[in-house]
């Protein structure tokens, strides 16, 4: 049993860890405190970082694990749970009601601390506050060097509909959809009704000037990386999802060079 003393585990694991993680607490504009999970590569890092937000289902181990896998590729990742920090219920309406103020504050803090360009990453209804925050950044720093600090948003199955679907009734998007000007990279699972409407979503996003790239993830469903009933294929795609996000980031970086 002595073999399993904690110091020994630390010793055994230490050589393979290529990142360090810490909790950073910041004060939000409304006075609430928010804990950020900061995962830094041990040996230097790229000049761009990821500011990640869980979807409307809240922060779970899977997002934290993915942030570590991304950090292993020398990319610094900050993760913030927008709903959890306010004890808001895990549902779409909570995300719809969030302004972009908090995301703006987090971008400010992340850029101030690291000096890096920021890629925003989220899933589902998380796209709403994330795009709102990005717009607030662009509005605030338009025409300055800081305008391009927000390098883009990588959105997994973005849910930008303004209300729940009604049979036979055209979808209305949240107004932020057509007010977005930062580059957007959509990772859309094939097995979702929304994949049939990507051309409409792209058109709506482009109205605000956003450059939109769409990548279909074959044979997976929405929320695939957190489904208890995930198929074997969904599990295998979940394993490579951090790499898919990094590839999207690299592609957006190259396009902007």
């Amino acid at each position, binding site marked *: 049993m002595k073999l399993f003393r904690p110091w020994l585990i630390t010793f055994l694991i230490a050589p393979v860890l290529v990142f360090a993680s810490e909790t950073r607490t910041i004060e939000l504009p409304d006075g609430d405190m928010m804990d950020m999970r900061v995962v830094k590569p041990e040996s230097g890092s790229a000049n761009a970082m990821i500011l990640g937000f869980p979807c409307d*289902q809240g922060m*779970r*181990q899977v997002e934290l694990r993915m942030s570590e896998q991304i950090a292993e590729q020398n990319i610094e990742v900050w993760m913030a749970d927008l709903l959890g920090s306010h004890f808001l219920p*895990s549902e779409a309406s909570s995300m719809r009601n969030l302004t972009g103020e908090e995301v703006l504050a987090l971008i400010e803090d992340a850029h101030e601390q690291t000096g890096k360009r920021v890629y925003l990453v989220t899933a589902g209804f998380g796209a709403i506050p994330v795009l709102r925050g990005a717009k607030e950044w662009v509005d605030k720093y338009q025409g300055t060097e800081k305008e391009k600090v927000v390098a883009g948003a990588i959105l997994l199955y973005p849910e930008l*509909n303004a209300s*729940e*679907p*009604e*049979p*036979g*009734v*055209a*979808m209305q998007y949240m107004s932020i959809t057509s007010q977005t000007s930062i580059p957007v990279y959509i990772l859309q699972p094939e*097995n979702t*009704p*929304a994949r*049939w*409407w990507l051309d409409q979503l792209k058109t709506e996003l482009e109205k605000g000037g956003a450059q939109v790239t769409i990548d279909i993830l074959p044979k997976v*469903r929405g929320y695939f990386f*957190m*489904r*208890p*009933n995930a198929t074997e294929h969904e599990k295998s795609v979940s394993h490579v999802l951090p790499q898919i996000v990094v590839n999207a980031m690299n592609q957006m970086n190259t396009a902007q060079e």
Partner: protein
Amino acid sequence: MKRLSALLFSLLIALYAGSLMAGELKPYKGKPLPDFSLVDMNGKQHSLADYKGKVVLINFWATWCPPCVKEMPSMQRLQDKFADQPFETLAVNMGEDKATIQEFLDSDQMKKTPLSFSILLDSDGAVLKSWKIFAFPTTFLIDKEGNITHGLFGGLEWDSPEAVAVVEELLAK
């Protein structure tokens, strides 16, 4: 702790799926939708106009959608209940190939309640778009005159007394 988190998340997903299953047939609010022509699993062409004079249940589904799969046996029981009346069920599959659908139909879970109604193939999503389908399952009820009377997003127990009463009312008109 990890196991507890997994359990809680499973419960959340179950509640979410449950909320999708708690659909309710409501009067249709949208505009009239266009006729369509689609082939079924046997290659037979179906046009909605062919069904004038019948009450039609049109269901949009996919094999990967759990609430869609869950409601299918009850849809078959509803079809069986009105087998001798002018009532027809059409299940429009969204974008999957015939082999995938056939594998689903041959699966153990579907062997318990084999489906006798037509499964139509909307391979390129054209009908999904013209009928403005944004979520699965989505189902419509159409009266004998070809008017859409009810719509529903989410699953339903189609042989429940409430759903049967709506179909009976449409058949009586």
